[in-house]
């Protein structure tokens, strides 16, 4: 059969080809431009390797690279230490309020890192409430700003996710296996250590990987809390945008380094998990064991402290939105004035965020569903795996790098998009495409192909069968996936910051500026931050059960 005939017979082949071209242009091409720019001197003509060499030799670049790696490793290690034992206790021992604990952990994962950074600065920055209070009672506390501060903020941003994954992993260990160990003479603790922990390891490792990836790509936290300490995404931002020392070579080379690091991490994760995914999900769930009164009190105190710290940002932001701001210091008396300003004069960023996120979400769900259909239901030899790889690739690209790529690729005719709302829409679409695609794939896997064939056997054309059967059945999954895509887009900062213009200022930009102590609209930023949290948490609470499953399945 000739290619032409195949195209005419199989409309999905046309869809796959169009998607291939679209994804190549949007995802791969900008990255290829970065590769090109990284090997050229800033003059854009001379070949050079200096871009990469200087990340190893020049002090500022090398330390940014090392900072990022160190922050990632330390935060990941700390979040495992903090969250895994607690998750184990809740999974295996009789403690009250497990549903509440799981809901809290779920909700904590939706908060964007920069919101946490902003709140912790309000609390423990140079002029933070707690910092000043500490100084007043004679404790010489300066501020949280610096390397340790980044780790601290990132830790409490990631701990909820690690808790969720570890809890899920421990709950799924077949209790027979531990009882078998005890029957051969192992003590209960020994059985925990030798059986439950290794069997739960794949889930915990996945959480560690996700934490590491998140921290490496995060721009907001190191920018807000880092002070003089530069992490790689922050350095890239400065290299690319600063008025004085703009250096596209260094920005491009750094971008590739960070994408390379993410890719290496992904490979490492795959390698470690290969052959380790035990089918541990037995028919029986572990019986939860009793705890002594003392141990129980201790466990509950630890749980309370854990969630107090995880939700500190939320409490601080909520509280500060009702205070009167004098310059960048929230003070008494309590007031509703910040909300008045938000609702009477400054709703535009809220609208902008909503409009861009809704548009990008609709596009991402549409493109993601088509991609999922091609990869789940069609087996084109090159196109199916190729599209799948292209659709997941943006997951490895930090927002800062994605934005640099888009600027480099789309700042020339005929596609001069820089400075328009379209480039923001594109950036959001590309960033969240992996999630939308994953959600659609998960929904499609639930629908057996024979359901569609059955419709064809009673006379439905393929298009009709798709519409009446498959589309109807995956709709709930798409709604959940779309909701989550919308929430993640609503809180996007790193790409937004590089791509926004005066007319496209989003909620995240208003909050970020206040967090840096510039712009002067501190009260407004506080009420905007509350608006953002409400926008995230109300829908998330409604879809939370599906969300947990989706997050763990990803």
């Amino acid at each position, binding site marked *: 059969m000739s290619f032409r005939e195949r195209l005419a017979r199989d409309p999905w082949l046309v869809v796959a080809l169009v998607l291939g071209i679209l994804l190549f242009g949007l995802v791969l091409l900008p990255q290829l431009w970065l590769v090109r720019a990284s090997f050229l001197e800033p003059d854009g003509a001379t070949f050079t390797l200096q871009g990469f060499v200087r990340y190893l030799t020049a002090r500022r670049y090398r330390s940014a690279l090392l900072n990022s790696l160190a922050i990632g490793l330390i935060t990941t290690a700390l979040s495992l230490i903090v969250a895994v034992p607690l998750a184990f206790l809740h999974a295996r021992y009789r403690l009250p309020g497990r549903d509440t604990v799981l809901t809290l952990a779920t909700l904590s994962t939706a908060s964007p890192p920069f919101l946490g950074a902003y709140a912790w600065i309000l609390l423990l920055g140079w002029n933070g409430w707690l910092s000043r209070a500490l100084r007043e009672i004679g404790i010489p506390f300066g501020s949280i700003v610096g390397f340790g501060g980044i780790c601290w903020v990132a830790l409490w941003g990631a701990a909820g996710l690690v808790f969720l994954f570890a809890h899920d992993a421990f709950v799924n260990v077949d209790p027979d296996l531990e009882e078998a160990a005890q029957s051969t003479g192992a003590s209960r603790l020994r059985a925990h250590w030798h059986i439950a922990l290794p069997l739960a390891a794949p889930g915990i490792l996945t959480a560690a990987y996700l934490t590491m990836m998140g921290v490496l790509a995060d721009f907001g936290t190191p920018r807000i809390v880092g002070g003089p300490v530069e992490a790689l995404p922050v350095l890239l931002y400065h290299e690319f945008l600063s008025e004085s020392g703009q250096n596209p070579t260094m920005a491009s080379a750094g971008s590739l380094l960070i994408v390379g690091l993410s890719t290496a991490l992904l490979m490492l994760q795959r390698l470690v998990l290969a052959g380790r995914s035990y089918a541990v999900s037995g028919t029986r769930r572990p019986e939860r064991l009793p705890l002594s009164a003392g141990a129980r009190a201790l466990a509950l105190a630890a749980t309370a402290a854990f969630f107090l710290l995880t939700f500190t940002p939320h409490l601080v932001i909520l509280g500060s939105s009702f205070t009167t701001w004098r310059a960048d210091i929230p003070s008494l008396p309590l007031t509703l004035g910040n909300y008045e300003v938000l609702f009477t004069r400054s709703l535009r960023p809220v609208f902008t965020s909503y409009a861009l996120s809704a548009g990008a979400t609709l596009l991402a769900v549409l493109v993601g569903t088509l991609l999922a259909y091609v990869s789940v239901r069609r087996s084109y030899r090159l196109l199916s795996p190729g599209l799948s790889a292209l659709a997941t690739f943006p997951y490895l690209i930090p927002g800062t790098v994605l934005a640099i790529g888009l600027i480099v690729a789309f700042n020339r005719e005929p596609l001069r998009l820089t400075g328009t709302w379209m480039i923001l829409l594109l950036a959001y679409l590309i960033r969240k495409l992996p999630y939308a695609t994953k959600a659609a794939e998960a929904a499609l896997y639930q629908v*057996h192909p*024979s*359901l569609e*064939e*059955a*419709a*064809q*056997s*009673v*006379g*439905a*054309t*393929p298009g*009709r*069968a798709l519409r*009446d*059967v498959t589309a*109807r*059945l995956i709709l709930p999954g798409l709604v959940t996936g779309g909701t989550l895509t919308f929430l993640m887009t609503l809180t996007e900062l790193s790409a937004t910051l590089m791509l926004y213009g005066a007319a496209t200022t989003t909620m995240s930009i208003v909050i970020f500026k206040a967090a840096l102590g510039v712009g002067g609209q501190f009260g407004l930023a506080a009420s905007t931050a509350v608006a953002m949290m409400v926008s995230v948490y109300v829908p998330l609470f409604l879809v939370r059960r599906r969300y947990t499953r989706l997050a763990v399945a990803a």
Partner: protein
Amino acid sequence: MDTPRRIPVRVESVRKRFGSSAALDGVTLDFPAGSLTTLLGPSGCGKTTLLRVIAGFVTPDEGRVFIADEDRTATPPWRRRIGFVFQSYALWPHMTVFDNVAYGLTLRRLPRSEIARQVERMLATVGLEGLAGRAPGHLSGGQQQRVALARALVLEPDVLLLDEPLANLDARLRAEMRRELRGLQRRVGITTVFVTHDQEEALELSDLVVVLHQGRVTQFGPPDEVWQRPASAEVAAFLGSATVIEGRASDRGDLITGAGTLPLALPPELAGKRVRVSVSARRYTILEE
């Protein structure tokens, strides 16, 4: 349905490869009008592929499919006038029993009252009166099976194709459904092709049995003949009803083996030759001379 339309089905030199392995390797078969034919064989023998070729879900690399003496090789499934019952039943979970059965009629744009009349009648035929409003998820396996049958038969297709439809039922229900299916098929008079790997099922149900092995037809005939005279060692082994013994035929027609002599009354012309003989409880069959 009242006056059974008797429609023959024929596949001719059908070949299909998946990657490097041949799923069907030159299959030619005539399914007589109104007959029930079982495709029997171990998993991977090509029986489901053959069924899906007849349905049009799989396009053969070579060969043709005739339904009612009409070449429908290039006709897509939705225009081929087939009824298909899937192993998992493939009932649409978001539609009621009524809507499942009515869907094909709706696509034909029949008036509502006519659709309702036909669905009710069909549900009565398969013994599901009163369950029209249920969701498929709330039915037993046997009931789901009947809905799937009703959904296929209500359109009065030219051929009914069943892909291991009884595999998911428990043993007792399976025997019951088998009899019911057979009765229904006789009454409707529809040409039926039935895939199974269960010998007993094939024996009890079919007018004709096709035994497939590695994409080829190794035997095609009435069940009695297939059981009593397996055409090859593979067929005999698959049916499991026979023992294959190798030996030398004596002048008196006995089979002389390493373990002793069997008095079998072999034909005199085999005297002195090495033969393989398939012995079953009732009779024996000479496989190879």
